[in-house]
């Protein structure tokens, strides 16, 4: 079997990176950056999640079918958020006659 086995050292490295990113996001949150606070916090969270998915969850070494399944989850989550928020976040921008 062509099984990829990551070394414990590598796992500890990913763990260290996740901890550093956690410290960074907590520190940035104490600064008042306005709307940029949320953008930085989400960028760090997405980075952390990507590290977990690729290396702890072995997607980096998995079959294309698995990678496609992961992307499919993001696609459907994107649809859910995009379609709903494109309604809620644009209310009041466009004047609706009779409302």
């Amino acid at each position: 079997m062509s099984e990829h086995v990551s070394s414990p050292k590598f796992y500890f490295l990913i763990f260290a990176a996740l901890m550093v990113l956690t410290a960074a996001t907590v520190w940035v949150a104490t600064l008042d950056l306005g709307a940029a606070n949320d953008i930085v916090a989400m960028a760090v969270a997405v980075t952390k999640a990507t590290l977990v998915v690729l290396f702890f969850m072995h997607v980096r070494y998995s079959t294309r079918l698995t990678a496609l399944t992961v992307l499919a989850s993001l696609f459907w989550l994107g649809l859910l958020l995009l379609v709903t928020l494109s309604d809620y976040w644009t209310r009041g921008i466009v004047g609706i006659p009779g409302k």
Partner: protein
Amino acid sequence: MASVPADRQSHHAAHPPAHQAAHHPALQHHFDNLEQQKESATFGMWLFLVTEVLFFGGLFLAYLVYRTQYSAAFVAGSHHLDVKLGVINTGVLIGSSLTMAMGVWAAQVNRRKATVVFLLLTILLGGVFLGIKGVEYSHKFHDNLVPGPHFTTDQSVFPGVNLRHVEIFYSLYFIMTGLHATHMVVGIGILAVLAVFAWRGKYSSAYYNPVECTGLYWHFVDIVWIFLFPLLYLLGAHAR
């Protein structure tokens, strides 16, 4: 990968029954080999995780809708959460993901005792997380911040914002962290069963699908927290 029936027949014909008897005991009869079985198990687990992404996705969506609607109340509500405990729990949970990954590694390299130890460590860290969560919840009960008839009417705690809107923040806080904690309780239960099976030597480099799939589940729960932590705890941090 899947082979056509003709291939399978020739495959069987080419190998004497002795080969059949040598099949790994964990290999289910409807799979050609352990590799195909592992691919199927991983694929199935990921399909389940897709439904989980959308399950939690609905709550994240609700959070985003109300957060933009009642922005000031959400900052005030978030401000009242204990960032220190949130940070500690984030570290604990990421640590449990490390021990989980190490548990899978130990199974991959045939280290039976190490597999058991790492699974037990993961259970322990999961337990620490839930304990800290329990401390936080009890603080919220004590401060009358649990949504419902007893939700605080003391405007001095949240000056200048509508308390009903703060209550919505706490509703989402309890539902999202509660659903997350429920997943952890389930995960700990599965890990306990795995630890027993691992101790009995059920897993090896040839067969460790249950450890791998439980790992996928555990890491997914970790990812949910990776997003919950900044959205709930850090939102009001710079207002301190």
